[in-house]
């Protein structure tokens, strides 16, 4: 199994080994890049071969990545391949490791929605707008989600917020129709 982080191919177990060592040493996952860096020095002493591979093959941008970012990139790569189950797993890991990243939350919400895991999608999308109140896509998807869950008031609020931020004319028409429908059916 390999994870393709173009243009580099990295054995998948490599990251898992590093994560394992980090957890063994700290008792918890690294929370920032400094922790990651310290952990890597520990890994260097315990797994020299891994560390040499790391220096040889990883680009500077990957060096700066947190484990959450790695799972996020893997999740997006799987999503592009149409492998939604794997994408969902990777994005869930990314979300667990980095709960303050709005883009991770949006991506997880989208993929969870595609898989019909609506409770996860709802939580992720709501988290994304808590982190970034201008996350346009989240309002659109929450509008649809709340309608399916028969929460018309929440749906109307989401559509209205979407309307105030959206730039796409076709989606604007859709949002207006949904608001009108929700108001009509409410009376």
């Amino acid at each position, binding site marked *: 199994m390999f994870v393709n982080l173009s243009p580099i191919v990295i054995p998948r177990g490599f990251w898992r080994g590093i994560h394992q060592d980090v957890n063994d040493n700290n008792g918890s996952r690294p929370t920032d890049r400094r922790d990651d860096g310290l952990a890597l020095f520990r890994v260097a002493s315990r797994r020299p071969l891994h560390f040499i591979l790391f220096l040889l093959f990883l680009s500077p941008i990957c060096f700066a990545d947190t484990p959450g970012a790695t799972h996020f990139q893997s999740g997006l790569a799987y999503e592009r391949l149409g492998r939604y189950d794997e994408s969902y797993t990777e994005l869930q890991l990314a979300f667990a490791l980095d709960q303050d990243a709005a883009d991770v939350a949006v991506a997880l919400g989208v993929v969870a929605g595609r898989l*019909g895991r609506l409770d996860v999608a709802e939580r992720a999308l709501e988290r994304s707008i808590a982190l970034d109140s201008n996350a346009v896509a*989240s309002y659109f998807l929450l509008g649809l989600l709340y*309608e*399916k869950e028969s929460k018309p008031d929440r749906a109307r609020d989401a559509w209205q917020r979407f309307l105030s931020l959206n730039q796409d004319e076709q989606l604007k028409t859709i949002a207006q129709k949904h608001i009108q429908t929700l108001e009509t059916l409410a009376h």
Partner: protein
Amino acid sequence: MAVLGLLALGACAAKTAVVRPPKDLSRIRRVSVVPFEGPGGQAATDAFVRRLMAGGLEVTDARHGGDAVLRGVVTEYKANNTLMVFLGKTMLVSPGGQSVVVDHPIVSPGASLAVPEGTAAGVQKAQVATINAIVAVSARLEETPGGRALWSAESTYEGLDVESALQTVTEILAGSLAQVLPQAGRKSL
């Protein structure tokens, strides 16, 4: 005209194509539902039958005559309408060349907005595809015998899946029908 205006206002979520000022429709208690045509026709028929029965009407199939006949066509039944979600701050460019940075925008396939190639510093371009469903139904109530149109309307709606889109379309059209046929009842979403 006043009646037409009132009906159009009440049924604003549905596009009411034909609503003729009805005669006394209170006699209509039993509606015969002809299977809807088009993709997803059976699902739409079932949804309408359930909705009309919940509203209090007696519903029969096409072989058993009713006081009126309901026909319909499913003109769109699409489960995988794709929209692109761009993650992070994304620059969108209008046809006029004006650019605007939007947080996590969602863009329809035929949108006039474009996402420029290349990545500006600090502006991400990761993207994921989301899908939604679109269902469009056109329905018509006809007098029996004679076949004169008593009511006709069409509605298009988007949902997370075809089931939720169809449910809302059914609800919208049933609400529109209830404007001319109060015994069809009304039910909130």
